[in-house]
């Protein structure tokens, strides 16, 4: 029964599959580039072969393109969700659908989320129709290792090819979660990191003679291999860290491994050491509205964290670690709007509208080293473009058209289907099961 339903659902989706990329010109638009600037009225956006060709005022429309008159509506890059677990979880509490962590696996750093990403998982459709087009997808660690594995950058397109960049980064826990995983203390987490470093350097010296000690090793051959590009600075290391002093400890890792490309995740107390973060040139994917001391490593939590880090010169985008990150990237718009609201609050540090919007588009892409590919409407970026019926950060505004890689996306989800079925709750001439 369940199998049949699934089959018929996927058959239906196949019919509704989006058209191939075409040249699209959006005219008469209130254009937001996503680079921190505010909107420009009367702008044009040109997308060709899946990429942005031009965007802004005074842009000429090429001939033969599909032209969409935006009628003065907002047109922006799609939301680039800075830290999520979307596409690797259908229902968190249903184990078989949850591919975030692997507590019984002998591997840690080697674990790669890319093959696990399911483009048909319902959070992708739900977030897509709210204007989220790209997401950083991270694995979660398990007891036994601070290393969670290799994350990916995905698109939310309605097709079978979700992974835009596999093995885009390694994710590591430090602070309380890292200490817990490593055996009970921050010292243990730190030792585990340094041990990994030695092992990886051994591996780099001589991959062939690297002794794989299997299950008894802290790091298998595959784990060591996965950490090579991290140590060599070819792949960023995302580190979840919250406490001010822990952030300094993590920044100091660069002294030991100069090539390390660090990105901080969470960073609730980042504002207390903002100048150090800025001086180290380390970007942050921060939780926007964390303002409670939910743990002893978040005592200085405040919604002004991002604003203060930004003011100190830190490159900071919004991430959503531990915030229903498997399914609610769409809330990032609301988070960004709240940061704008702080501007009216005496003593608080928020963001300008343009910077707040950049914090959910170009800044997280830049933090991942992918600013040239995603997160803005600058020429050459992927054609992830959204037309909105209002200010995209304001509650109640909706995405009207969503393009991913230049392809217009369907605007339905399980939720819209359920809503339509039950808009009139009472059964009609036949049971609800016949209403579809």
């Amino acid at each position: 029964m369940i199998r049949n339903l699934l089959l018929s659902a996927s058959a239906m989706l196949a019919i509704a599959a989006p058209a191939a990329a075409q040249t699209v010109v959006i005219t008469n638009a209130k254009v937001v580039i996503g680079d921190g600037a505010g909107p420009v009225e009367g702008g044009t956006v040109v997308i060709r072969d899946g990429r942005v060709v031009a965007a802004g005022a005074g842009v000429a429309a090429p001939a033969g393109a599909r032209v969409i008159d935006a009628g003065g509506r907002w047109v922006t890059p799609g939301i680039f969700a800075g830290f999520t677990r979307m596409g690797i979880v259908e229902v968190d509490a249903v184990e078989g659908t949850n591919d975030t962590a692997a507590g019984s696996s002998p591997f840690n750093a080697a674990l790669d989320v890319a093959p696990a990403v399911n483009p048909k998982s319902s959070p992708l459709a739900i977030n897509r129709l709210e204007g989220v087009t790209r997401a950083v997808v991270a694995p979660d660690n398990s007891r036994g290792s601070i290393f969670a594995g290799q994350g990916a950058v995905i698109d939310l397109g309605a097709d079978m090819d979700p992974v835009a960049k596999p093995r885009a980064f390694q994710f590591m826990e430090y602070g309380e979660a890292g200490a817990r995983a490593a055996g009970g203390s921050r010292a243990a987490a730190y030792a585990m990191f340094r041990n990994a470093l030695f092992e990886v350097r051994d591996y780099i010296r001589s991959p062939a003679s690297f002794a794989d000690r299997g299950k008894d090793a802290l790091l298998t051959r595959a784990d060591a291999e996965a950490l090579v590009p991290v140590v060599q600075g070819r792949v960023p290391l995302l580190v979840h860290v919250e406490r001010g002093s822990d952030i300094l400890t993590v920044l100091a890792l660069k002294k030991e491994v100069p090539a390390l490309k660090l990105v901080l995740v969470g960073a609730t107390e980042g504002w207390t050491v903002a100048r150090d973060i800025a001086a180290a040139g380390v970007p942050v994917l921060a939780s926007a509205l964390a303002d409670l001391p939910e743990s002893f490593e978040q005592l200085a939590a405040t919604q002004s964290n991002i604003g203060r880090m930004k003011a100190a010169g830190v490159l900071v985008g919004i991430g959503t670690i531990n915030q229903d990150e498997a399914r609610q990237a769409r809330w990032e718009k609301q988070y960004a709007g709240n940061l704008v609201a702080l501007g009216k609050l005496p003593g608080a540090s928020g963001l300008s509208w343009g910077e707040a919007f950049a914090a959910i588009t170009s800044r997280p892409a830049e933090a991942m080293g992918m600013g040239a590919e995603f997160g803005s409407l600058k020429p050459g970026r992927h054609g992830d473009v959204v037309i909105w019926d209002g200010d995209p950060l304001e509650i109640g505004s909706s995405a009207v058209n969503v393009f991913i890689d230049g392809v217009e996306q369907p605007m339905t989800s399980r939720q819209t289907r359920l809503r339509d079925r039950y808009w009139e709750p009472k059964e009609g001439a036949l049971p609800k099961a016949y209403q579809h």
Partner: protein
Amino acid sequence: MFRPILVLGTALALASCAGDGNHAQSASSEAGSTGPGRGKGYAHDPFPSTYRAYPGAPTLVTNVTIFDGEGGRIDNGSVLFRDGKIVEIAQTIEAGAGVTVIDGRGKYLTPGVIDIHSHLGDYPSPGVEALSDGNEITSPVTPEVWAEHSVWPQDPGFGRALANGGVTTLQILPGSANLFGGRSVTVKNVYARTMQGMKFPGAPYGLKMACGENPKRVYGGKGRAPSTRMGNIAVDRATWAKAVEYKRRWDKYEDKGGEPPARDLAMDTLRGVLDGEILVQNHCYRADEMAVVLDMAKEFGYKVTAFHHAVEAYKIADLLKANNTCAAVWADWYGFKMEAYDAVPENLAILEKEGACAMIHSDDQNGIQRLNQEVAKARASGRKAGFDISEAQAWRWLAINPAKALGIADKTGSLKPGKMADVVLWNGNPFSVYTRPQMVWVDGALLYDANNPKLRPVSDFELGQPGEGDVK
């Protein structure tokens, strides 16, 4: 809300008297005495509220957009409060002598936000094991535990809910691991040294019940009942059957005297529900399970005041309306567990459209800081789908509706003369993401002012810590 329950309780009591009338009469004549009187066999309020309103200046807010909390709106209106009570709400009000006048131009005035579902204090920040006191997971049936005995009044979350969320009243519930989780407590959102110092004077208790995945998972995992949904209902019914018997014995004793029955603290709570004195606040997600619970309530003669979470309430909006049972829901949570899989963001709107009693809730220390935005989201989802509801009407979802479901609508929940002056002045339209509370009064006392750092609450826990007294 409260009245029908009382009526039901009385009817039930009469019925049980009539059923064994002869018997009772003869027992009574044999004993030759009368009891202590109905409800007087034991203390019903052994931890009484010691909350006292703080002093406040008589205050008049003028030129302000008002949502009165019951669906009314006045543009460029005025509200006067004095001695802790709303005095007048009108287009224009004359400022008397000694009245503080606040120009509300460009701002909005509403009754304080009420959150019917919170775990502040019993699952406080920091979320450490030593302070996690929300679920007594040693038995699926624990109506004898009271959330108020777990509430830590130093939870920093209370201050955030006040300053960022404009929350002035909240119900703190036990968790949902148990079928019968225990009693809830309703508090004013005013820091105090003791729980009793926060306790909302005269608010009825609630009984937290839970359907579905949580009880069966927690106890099934321990190798005991319930391990299935049918097990949930079986244990529920067995417990209610005992409660009906307990009530019969105590009613008889209180009316007729004789030897008092043995006290059972769990059954005291359930007897309170059967008497309509305690309101059932029932965690339940799925439509079909809510329907089963409604029938179970009829079987044993109690009423479900509100289903909480109720992500599938939209599927049975008509049934909820017919049973006069409310639904307290999120705007857009979904999918984190199987029973939340069919959530839709139009849940509130469909309930409202069908005339059922609906409201927002947080169940979350972060969400409670933005319930106005949650209502804005729910309203927007409804409008997009074709059900237009005004901002003033939508404000009922966090004002009079939760007040009714908490049994305190005669005291707070709207800006009506004589009610508690629980008031929020917003620095813009509270349906906008760009708006924040500017001032919050509880019982007429100004307890938050965005312009005055001295009026930012700092709990004991945060004193002397990094970030003390910061904007949060």
